[in-house]
């Protein structure tokens, strides 16, 4: 299905491309991002950060900063009522008190009259450090037992040996979210002893919980408002300035604005976990998979944050969308001092899928088998068991997706007349030294699986309230809009259920009941379902009222095109009039099914709520001598359940594919001795529109049971598989192994300094090879379980 790529502000209901309410403002540059927030009498916040990856703090003297005229507050660790917070475990200081554990960790904060003064005051704070030796290599962290979580499980008969065995070690780099709007926002006292936090976030309620706890306030005293989000991609799950802003606003009794520079944001952000994965597939000569073995190592930051959930995702979905009867899996998320790691689109799954798909590439080469065919014959089907002891009990069109994707038309060859090729279509772009005779074309094929919703026992639910008056509805649901499209999706759902065109959604804050976090592709299936259920209840209430007022049988009534209609479709009266000026309201909560941690052997709950599938065929043109690449085309087929907004659905796939391609080709935040080497957009590159390929996306729609409209989350899958797909195409063009994403020009051209050849994601550049020695038993810390 290819559909028009234009949106319309006037279309209504599920299946239409309703335009985002902020579309025009954003296109014109009039949208107010959190970075633009201004307030009368506001102060500017600044943060003093650790220059050391690991150091003991011997002394902090705030006095010189406090004495500067125009400085209103200078706070250190002892000013924080409860100085330990965290997304899951409270193991992270708000401001460093004893040890600084990564470069950029906040030590002290300042509020001053202007940003420059705040910055100078922060610099004037005197801090004495005792630098210590940081752990910069995840293998060292593993050997030293610095483990956030250890996962170990097997399935079927782990002693099975296949006729064909293929193994490899694969790496993915530290990826930054690089959203356009850097961390920014406003904290202001509410005048009643509480504080308001206005800024960009993915989950207002989780922010409130952490802010209130750190400030020693009841949650009611903290209002978190989601405002002006300029991209999130998982990055805004992690708190940066929010608690600092709240502290300074409470101390100064003035509004305090934070605005990070790009460089500061790079240091403060929680990046994608770099991975190092050894994997071995066992198969028959015919290519039927028999067993998967893997050792999965994710480099987390010094504090646990969400690392436990990330390694859980990786250790399960490393299976890929394939039926594999036997498995032996072990994984660790370890603590290093290279900076914090946290969620990024395709959290934890991308790394596992990259290793799985790369190794299947190798298997296809060894069997001399078409990579799409290898995947199709192993496609998981409904009723099959996952290796993590879960029945695949929902529609599973994996084989169909693979076959559909490989049947899509390939792009034409480069024209033979070189003069007809615009240089932006060539590897390297304008002024590239390439030419047709230097270019080889490669084709790669991958398929992928991604969990929809948070997994392993994390509660996933949402509450929505809908109010109908005079034929128009207002939705209140605390699901954070971060660009993914919930603001239109929710309105379209209510339009369809209530048969009305005027629907609006309120700004999100913590005065509303909690919704799900914008995470794990779960907002439509969770908060969207809550909206649908609330709308359904509201519809029943409304029609009951109409039936009673007009002495009609409620079962004969329906709502459509802004009218109450009868069974024959005859318009009875307009919904606006039928309501008689009264207010109708419904509030409903929707909860996803329960899940269990991987190692919970008692429960029969699934590990993942549900799973989404897709396939991606990538075509690249490569100047193999110089390692320059132009991704020509990506063909994506995805299982989407039901398309709510076609343009947004295609947009998610295109955006995700390009972001994933970034990790496949260029995105690598490097660290050396714990210091980031390229923490800005001069040195850290994300794809431009010139780099973006033609993307053809098609959908496969099988209604997902458990949801009235049968939808499924889609946002992460295109990103999850794109790096694997790009690398598969590059391997096809170059014949190289390319075990590392990103494959920068030096890897593609296979020109590496000896000492840098294996520098990979680990800063130390060691060449130790896996599978690695099993470390001492880890502490018993399950995911989502608080570890005191």
């Amino acid at each position: 299905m290819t559909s028009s790529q234009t949106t319309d502000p006037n279309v209504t209901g599920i299946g239409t491309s309703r335009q985002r309410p902020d579309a025009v403002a954003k296109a014109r540059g009039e949208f107010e991002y959190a970075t633009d927030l201004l307030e009368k009498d506001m102060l500017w916040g600044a943060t003093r950060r650790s220059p050391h990856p690991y150091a003991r703090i011997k002394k902090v003297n705030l006095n010189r900063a406090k004495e500067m005229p125009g400085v209103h507050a200078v706070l250190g660790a002892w000013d924080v009522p409860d100085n330990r917070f965290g997304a899951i475990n409270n193991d992270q200081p708000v401001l460093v008190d004893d040890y600084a554990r990564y470069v950029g960790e906040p030590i002290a904060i300042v509020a001053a009259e202007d940003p420059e003064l705040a910055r100078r005051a922060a610099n004037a704070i005197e801090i004495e450090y005792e630098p210590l030796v940081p752990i910069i290599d995840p293998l060292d962290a593993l050997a030293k037992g610095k483990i956030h979580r250890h996962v170990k499980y097997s399935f079927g008969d782990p002693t099975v040996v296949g006729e064909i065995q293929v193994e490899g070690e694969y790496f993915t780099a530290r990826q930054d979210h690089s959203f356009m709007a850097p961390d920014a926002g406003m904290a202001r006292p509410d005048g009643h002893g509480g504080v308001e936090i206005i800024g960009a976030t993915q989950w207002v309620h989780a922010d409130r919980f952490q802010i209130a706890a750190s400030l020693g306030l009841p949650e009611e005293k903290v209002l978190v408002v989601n405002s002006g989000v300029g991209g999130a991609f998982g990055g805004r799950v992690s708190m940066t300035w929010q608690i600092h802003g709240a502290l300074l606003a409470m101390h100064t009794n003035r509004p305090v604005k934070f605005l990070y520079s790009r460089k500061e944001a790079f240091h403060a952000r929680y990046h994608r976990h770099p991975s190092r994965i050894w994997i071995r597939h066992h198969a028959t000569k015919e290519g039927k998979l028999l067993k998967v073995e893997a050792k999965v190592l994710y480099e987390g930051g010094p504090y646990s944050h969400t690392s436990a959930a990330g390694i859980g995702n990786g250790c399960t979905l490393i299976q890929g969308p394939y039926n594999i009867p036997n498995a032996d899996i072990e994984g660790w998320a370890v603590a290093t001092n290279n900076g914090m790691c946290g969620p990024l689109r395709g959290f934890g799954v991308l790394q596992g899928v990259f290793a799985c798909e790369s190794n299947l590439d190798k298997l296809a080469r060894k069997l001399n088998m078409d990579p799409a065919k290898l995947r199709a014959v192993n496609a998981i089907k409904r009723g099959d068991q996952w290796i993590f002891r879960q029945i695949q009990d929902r529609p599973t069109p994996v084989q169909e997706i693979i076959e559909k994707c490989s049947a899509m038309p390939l792009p034409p060859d480069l024209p033979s007349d070189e003069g007809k090729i615009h240089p932006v279509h060539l590897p390297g772009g304008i002024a590239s030294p390439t030419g047709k005779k230097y270019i080889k074309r490669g084709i790669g094929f991958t398929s992928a699986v991604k969990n929809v919703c948070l997994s392993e026992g994390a509660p996933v639910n949402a509450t929505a309230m809908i109010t109908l008056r005079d034929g128009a509805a207002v939705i209140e649901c605390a699901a954070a809009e971060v660009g993914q499209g919930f603001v239109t999706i929710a309105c379209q759902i209510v339009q369809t259920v209530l048969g009305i065109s005027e629907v609006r959604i309120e700004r999100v804050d913590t005065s509303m009941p909690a919704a799900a976090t914008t995470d794990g592709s779960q907002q439509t299936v969770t908060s969207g379902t809550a909206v649908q259920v609330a709308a359904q209840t509201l519809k029943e209430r409304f029609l009951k009222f109409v039936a009673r007022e007009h002495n009609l049988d409620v079962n004969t009534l329906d709502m459509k095109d802004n009218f109450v209609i009868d069974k024959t479709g005859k318009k009875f009266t307009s919904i606006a009039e039928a309501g008689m000026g009264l207010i109708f309201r419904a509030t409903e909560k929707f909860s996803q099914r329960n899940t269990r941690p991987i190692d919970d052997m008692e429960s029969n709950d699934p590990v993942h709520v549900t799973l989404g599938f897709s396939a991606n065929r990538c075509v690249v043109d490569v100047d193999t001598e110089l390692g320059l690449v132009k991704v020509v085309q990506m063909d994506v087929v995805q299982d989407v359940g039901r398309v709510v907004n076609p343009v947004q659905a295609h947009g998610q796939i295109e955006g995700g594919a390009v972001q994933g391609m970034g990790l496949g080709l260029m995105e690598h935040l490097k660290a050396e001795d714990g210091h980031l080497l390229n923490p800005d957009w001069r040195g850290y590159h994300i794809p431009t529109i010139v780099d973006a390929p033609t993307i053809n996306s098609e959908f496969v729609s099988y209604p997902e049971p458990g949801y009235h409209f049968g939808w499924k989350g889609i946002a992460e899958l295109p990103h999850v598989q794109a790096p694997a797909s790009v690398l598969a195409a590059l391997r096809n063009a170059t014949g190289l192994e390319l075990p590392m994403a990103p494959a920068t020009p030096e890897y593609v051209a296979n020109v590496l300094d000896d000492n840098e050849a294996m520098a990979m994601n680990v800063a130390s550049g060691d060449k130790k090879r896996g599978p690695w020695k099993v470390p001492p038993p880890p502490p018993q810390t399950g995911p989502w379980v608080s570890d005191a």
Partner: protein
Amino acid sequence: MIIQSPFLAVVESINEALDTKQKRPSSRFISGGTEVIADQNLGLLEPEGYISLRRIKELHTIEPKSDGLYIGAGVVVAQLLDDKAMAQVILLKKAARAFGTRQVRNRATVGGNIASGLPDRTLLPCLLALEATVHLQSAKGKRSLPIKDFLIEPGKTAISKDEILTGTTVPYVKGFQEYYMVGPRNAQFFVTACLALVVDEANKNVRLGLGNAGPTAMRAKEAEEYANNAIDWKKQTVDETIAIKFGEIAAENCSPVSDAAASAAYRRHAIKVMSKRILLRAFERKQ
């Protein structure tokens, strides 16, 4: 409110600029600001204030003269693409198209690109290959020097604190001119490595300028010397072995750095391959 903003003096003549500079010696000249403001925002420099050169009309001219094309320091890169006179120096026009984004090209000036003195700047290898002259002016007077003597080390040039770079004169050279670059993606980047080749048909020599292949932009003298002797100037041909050797010599004699973008080995490799290809290209067109 405490105002600590640096002052901004908008001047309309070179003399006024020099006067202001004498009065406020720790201030900084600024024109497009694409580099200076970014550096200021990163906290790399904290000048007392800025003297804006943007309103000085004489810095904005592109003028054909007998000894070459005069390009004022205030000319923005977009002008290099549009100005008719640039047809006489096709290399700069090609390089200008590869320069940054449209927004940056509309703002960044030729003078700023030269005065930065950094090895990865677009125009420097081109000006080296063209053997351009740069013009400086201070209260004491004017002076001109070849671009090769202007570049000293990364970020350091022959310009003294009280001098303004007023422009550059680019000699007309008849023959093939081309600019090649490689980078981490396909648009808008600081070059990983770049080079510019000028074939001087009248004097029967080639000149190769290299960018990001050493501490400053540089000429590949050894490779040029080899090529000048090896090229069959009568037939106007170069066979592949000569081009390969040309690239190898250029690569051997440069000294690129390793950084987050690429290793020294890759930069050297890119210089080798690009030099080979550009020389082949220069002479294949003749056939």
